[in-house]
């Protein structure tokens, strides 16, 4: 297997719908919003008729909406028929893998211009049905009958991590506080409010209703409050978990030689990697995700860089502990030191290795089959200095995305580069 693309691929457009709970909007409605924003983001314009193929990440429209065969519907509603339309499903990594398939298709020479999107409409189902639908991303024969849920898997990884390295539940709370701070600057975020803002809203609500006013002094007081922040799967609480979301995101990939036709500031695919694995109990340990390590190593090798060269990353924080583990699996911090880096602010927006400047899945929202493309949208904006109030200061060259399916049965990593 070669570690290089047969030809270079560039990212020249990116758009996304707002992430949230949108009663009355289906997948296609959200996808159209993201697609139109993507078209508008192409500096020198794109005629949609030039697009050769469409790749759509989607986890489970079948169970969430009762709609299968979703890719040609997205093509039809965006006016792209009759080009080939392909659905890609790798659970919560569906969209990241769709990006990879789009890159491979352009690199192969078969296509010059492809649109890659992701979409999920989760909020039509009641929470327990969503939980059951997400559970199908695990091993339904050997894991789910034991009583595992998705928060449960990551909570078990958390207890293993805490016992091995000394982190506490507060470590994970601090990750959530940080991601909500970042998300408060993202107009597309589902829960774009700082924890302090949520606390004040709760206080005001209590006063209005004549109820006892909560006596939280700090954000951690709020996070420890069983009523404000109930346990979902110990040690993980509500604010450790990404929400149930609707949303879509779309990017435009073109061959490197065509990039300047669309923009003077293209973003290039520098490296990528992907790996698969068995159930959580099939791994050597519970506190590291082997597929993430492998995918990361492949991406760094292709890009010819080290983790230290990465300026910022969007990582798969489906649960707060996942961000800490990812920061180690991707080589940003030594094994067992990621939690210390998180506590010391290294992953904050002004830290040495900012993670999830967008607010991450935690605050931005996690429409599972769209999240991987949503991460790429953020990297595109940050690298081009278009991230508005949440723009990371200074010159940015490399941005990394890390998208996990299940508990690590799939992981896909991309490294994007600004060269101008």
């Amino acid at each position, binding site marked *: 297997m070669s570690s290089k693309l047969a030809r270079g691929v560039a990212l020249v457009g990116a758009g996304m719908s707002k992430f949230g709970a949108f009663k009355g909007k289906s997948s296609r409605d959200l996808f159209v919003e993201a697609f139109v924003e993507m078209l508008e983001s192409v500096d020198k314009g794109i005629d949609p008729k030039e697009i050769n193929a469409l790749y759509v990440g989607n986890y489970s429209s079948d169970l969430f909406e009762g709609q299968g065969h979703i890719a040609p519907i997205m093509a039809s509603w965006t006016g792209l028929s009759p080009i080939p339309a392909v659905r890609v499903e790798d659970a919560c990594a569906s969209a990241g893998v769709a990006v990879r398939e789009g890159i491979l298709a352009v690199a192969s020479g078969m296509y010059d211009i492809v649109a890659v999107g992701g979409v999920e409409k989760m909020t039509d189902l009641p929470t327990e049905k969503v939980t059951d639908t997400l559970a199908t991303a695990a091993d339904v024969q050997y894991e789910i009958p034991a009583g595992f849920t998705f928060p449960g898997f990551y909570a078990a990884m958390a207890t293993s991590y805490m*016992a091995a390295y000394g982190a506490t539940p507060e470590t994970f709370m601090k990750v959530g506080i940080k991601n909500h701070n970042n998300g408060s600057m993202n107009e597309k975020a589902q829960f774009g409010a700082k924890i302090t803002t949520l606390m004040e809203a709760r206080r005001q609500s209590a006063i209005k209703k004549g109820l006892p006013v909560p006596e939280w002094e700090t954000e951690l007081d709020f996070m420890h409050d069983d009523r404000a922040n109930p346990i979902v799967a110990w040690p993980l609480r509500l604010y450790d978990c990404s929400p149930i979301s609707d949303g879509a995101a779309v990017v435009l990939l073109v061959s490197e030689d065509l990039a300047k036709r669309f923009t003077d500031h293209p973003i290039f695919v520098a490296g990528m990697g992907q790996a698969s694995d068995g159930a959580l109990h099939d791994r050597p340990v519970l506190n590291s995700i082997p597929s993430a390590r492998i995918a990361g190593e492949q991406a760094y090798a292709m890009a010819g860089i080290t983790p230290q060269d990465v300026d910022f990353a969007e990582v798969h924080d489906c649960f707060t502990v996942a961000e800490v583990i990812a920061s180690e699996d991707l080589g940003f911090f030594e094994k067992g030191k990621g939690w210390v880096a998180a506590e010391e602010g290294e992953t904050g927006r002004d830290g040495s290795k900012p993670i999830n400047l967008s607010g991450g899945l935690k605050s931005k929202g996690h429409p599972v089959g769209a999240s991987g493309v949503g991460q790429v949208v953020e990297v595109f904006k940050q690298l081009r200095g278009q991230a508005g109030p949440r723009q990371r200061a200074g010159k940015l060259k490399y941005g990394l995305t890390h998208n996990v399916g299940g508990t690590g049965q799939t992981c896909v990593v991309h490294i994007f580069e600004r060269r101008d």
Partner: protein
Amino acid sequence: MENQFTHTAFNSYLNEHRLMGTRNLKDGSMYCPPRPIDPENHSTDMEWTEFKGTGKLEGFTIVYIGSTAMIAAGYDRKNPYCVGVVRLDEGPMISGQILGVDVFHPESIEIGIPVKAAYVDRGEGETKKSSLAFEPV
């Protein structure tokens, strides 16, 4: 090759309160859950083998918002349950409910404690099924 190392067969053994996996006849490596193909050397020369059911707790959680099946079994926010991953003495890890621990004081549950297989029987008559669980030794 006709694959006999199925989940259905594994469950039939569980219903007899036996934890069964597979053993590679060439190098003796053991797998639980049972695998028809050895992932290390791709051998299909496997046989059923019984696991002792003893091991150590590798990771756990106390679930307050359970799966539909566990809610049906009577668990909820006021009655949460423990589930975890156990490293069996023979080497492989497997998932199971963890019984006999204080779910309201999770700090008291230590990673690495020795556990042994227990079997939870749910349903009656023909629908009776046993699930794999573990409890502290």
